């Protein structure tokens, strides 16, 4: 089909509902009418002028081939010239920042990359702060993000497979992995799931999670999220697959195992002995965060005999005159804590400081003085609240579990808490995330992977890729195959 430049332009304008940011420019080139079209705010004007307007209008050599070929090969000053056979194809690309060239009477439309990348600079992500180590974080641009990965990986092995997801947004989603390291079945499984997604728009990476995880209704996350390229590359080197979404600074990683959340990128830049200690502390923190208020309630209601006599006296003293049951007391504090957290999170920073003072000092102090709650209960809830953020990525889940633990502790006592804990363990043990057991390498116990579980071995001793993560087992040696080199 041959395109009539003017008609095609009208056609596109109509399809885009005469959108005011759709711009066009008509030029003559060897007696042919050429229409150049672009979307104003997402196109780089300078680049547009340099790659399109200037070369076309200044071209003064004789025409040797047909116009399209001549434009493509000699005139247009761009690193990439795409040919479209339908208006729809051309339009889709134009909407992502490309400029299109419609030559009257030709069978193809040309497209040039003139996209204006508008994104914030590369910064350290606020939830993945490190003391020592790289501070670069992902941005909202998929191109920048891929560039950040490429900067660290100079191998042909890195595969970036980009697809558009979202009927209306056509968001670019990239699947990144190392071809020789990642498990092929996992990659194809992920790609198959991504291709099946039917959704209007993907505004963030988290939109994809429910499509990708097996137990989609589970409160526990089964897909990892990273904000830093060094962490992503580290995970990819172990065989994981990353999913980058344009417009999101979060990169999803799969397979995911729970222990990942107890690990931090800092761990790999610090002394191994310290790392082991800190990881155990994190685990302890998680346990305290979830069960401490529940256990406290259970002890008060059912099992005061466990409490040492001296401490029991303190509790009895502080509880004098408090009108609520231990459950209501702790529950009130937990809810208060959650409200403060939510309010603090969304407040401007300068308000946030004031909020902390109001919350922690004034509210805490006055509730105790007013005889609504006892100081030990405040201490227990505060301790539990602080320990949440040892593992920030699981804080949301843990806060719900904490509430459940409070109810169970009050209803069933310590026995109920024990059953609850085993139930949680059993529930977590039942997950498999892309061929990897959720609690691996602890359950199932994988001897080889203990070098980077709760302790971390010296980097030079970590010779094999982890077995707990589904990866290409034929290429398990981290030092690479000598024959390959």
């Amino acid at each position, binding site marked *: 089909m041959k395109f009539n430049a003017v008609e095609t332009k009208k056609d596109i304008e109509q399809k885009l509902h005469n959108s005011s940011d759709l711009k066009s420019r008509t030029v003559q080139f060897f007696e042919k009418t050429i229409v150049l079209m672009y979307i104003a705010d997402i196109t780089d004007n300078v680049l547009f002028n340099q790659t399109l307007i200037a070369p076309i209008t200044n071209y003064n050599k004789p025409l040797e081939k047909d116009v399209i070929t001549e434009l493509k090969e000699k005139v247009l000053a761009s690193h990439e010239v795409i040919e479209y056979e339908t208006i729809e194809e051309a339009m889709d690309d134009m909407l992502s920042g490309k400029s299109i060239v419609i030559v009257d009477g030709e069978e193809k439309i040309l497209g040039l990359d003139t996209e204006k990348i508008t994104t914030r600079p590369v910064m350290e992500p606020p939830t993945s702060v490190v003391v020592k180590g790289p501070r670069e974080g992902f941005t909202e641009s998929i191109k920048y993000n891929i560039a950040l990965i490429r900067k660290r990986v100079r191998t042909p092995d890195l595969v970036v497979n980009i697809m558009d997801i979202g009927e209306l947004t056509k968001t670019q989603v990239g699947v990144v992995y190392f071809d020789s390291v990642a498990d092929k079945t996992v990659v194809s499984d992920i790609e198959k799931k991504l291709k099946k997604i039917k959704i209007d728009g993907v505004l963030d990476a988290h939109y994809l999670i429910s499509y990708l995880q097996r137990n989609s209704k589970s409160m526990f996350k089964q897909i990892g999220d990273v904000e830093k390229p060094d962490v992503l590359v580290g995970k990819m080197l172990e065989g994981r697959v990353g999913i980058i979404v344009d417009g999101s600074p979060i990169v999803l990683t799969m397979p995911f195992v729970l222990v990942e959340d107890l690990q931090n990128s800092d761990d790999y830049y610090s002394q191994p002995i310290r790392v082991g200690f800190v990881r155990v502390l994190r685990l302890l923190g998680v346990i305290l965060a979830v069960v401490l208020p529940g256990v406290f309630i259970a002890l008060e*209601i059912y099992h*005061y005999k466990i409490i040492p*006599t001296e401490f029991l*006296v303190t509790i*009895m003293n502080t509880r004098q005159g408090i009108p609520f049951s231990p459950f209501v007391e702790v529950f009130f504090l937990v809810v208060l804590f959650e409200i403060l957290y939510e309010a603090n999170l969304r407040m401007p920073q300068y308000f946030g400081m004031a909020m902390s003072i109001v919350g922690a000092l004034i509210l805490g102090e006055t509730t105790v003085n007013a005889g609504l709650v006892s100081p030990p209960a405040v201490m227990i809830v505060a301790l539990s609240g602080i320990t949440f953020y040892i593992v920030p990525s699981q804080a949301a889940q843990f806060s719900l579990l904490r509430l459940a633990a409070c109810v169970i502790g009050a209803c069933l006592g310590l026995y109920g808490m024990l059953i609850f804990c085993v139930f949680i363990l059993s529930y977590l043990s039942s997950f498999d995330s892309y061929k990897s057991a959720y609690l691996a390498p602890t359950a199932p116990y994988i001897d080889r992977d203990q070098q980077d579980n709760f302790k971390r071995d010296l980097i030079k001793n970590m010779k094999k890729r982890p077995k707990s993560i589904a990866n290409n087992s034929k290429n398990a040696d981290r030092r690479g195959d000598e024959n390959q080199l």
Partner: protein
Amino acid sequence: MKKLKSIFSPRKIIIILLIIVGIITVPGLNMPAMSETEAIVTMLCMDKQDENIVVSATVLSPGPNNVPNYQVFTGSGQTLSNAVDAVSLTIGKEMGFAQCEVMALGENLCDIGVMQTLDFMTRTKKVGRNAYLVSFAGDINDFSESMSNLNKEKSLSLEKILKFDERYTLIKNSNIENFYIGYFNDLSLGVMPKVEIKNTEDDNAIEVASGGQSAGDEAETKSGEKEKKYFVNDGSISIFKKGKRVFDVDSKMVKKANFFVNNEQEGALVIENVDDDLYTDATVIVDVVRKQNEIGVRFDGDTPVYRNHMEIVVFVEQVLGNQPKENLLKRNKDFLTKTLLERIKEKVQNDMQDCIDFCKTNKVDLIDAYKHFYKLTNKKFEEYLKITGKENYLDNIKFEFDIKVSNEY
């Protein structure tokens, strides 16, 4: 089948069960703290008075500045259960015995037998079998009062005193469990520390030891001075046979029996009239800083032999009497002269012989001879018992002492 399966789907079953559990247990959400509904009993005294059982419970209650406040409540009834209920009614709370650390039994109760009481308290009321046991002489109200006085001083408790007591008496662990072990053994012999109650006017010196400022429990005496009840623990013990108290052993004899017990117990020995190059008719007090017993039993023919090899490390603590001033310049170990060593050895041997004589006379095995012979020479000892019987077996045992005294570890 498919329909059935969908009805019995695991998710549905779990949700239904959770709902049932929720319905049943939801009152828990509004349950008060247990410490508010139960009286926390830290000590329990029991005795028999006029055909009634009297129970006195020391109850922990909140006090200012996190200092525990102890209150004593008393009740009586025809049975122990009635008496406990009477205390509960007085307090208006269930009695919680989980924190009960001491059980004190009055002499009257000890005389009629304590096993039923202990069984009831441990089985039904769930008093821990590791609670300390103590017998007391005197009125239960006086004992409760003295306990109240003691508890007012935060650092003092009967439990701590009894624990310290173990270093000086032959009771390794004066708790209910050990009493049970003694009761269930062949000899059915039990030992319990014994305390007495006194008034301050009886002996002012000990008031300082028991300490405590008392307001409520003080009573005006005739002279206008405030009189206070306190208890005295001098290390004496009560001996029980088949759960009944048979007699008491004074602290002196307890110390003598102490030489047979195979553990590191301490104490002081007073050696009088020491006369040699260093001492002139002096009374020397030596401190036993370490004692190691090695008890061996055997049969020489048909005669059972009980051999006690003992190594004592002593330290001269005090020398009474006029001594030359040069003695003060001597090193510690020079104080332990050959004569003194001999005298210590002689003293220990005499004390042990006294103890054996006491055991034989009273037919009570404070020295664990039965246990050692039974465990180590089982068959022969059983034959021996057939001849002597379980009452008189001590009579024909030959005792050998091998005592080594030194001042070096």
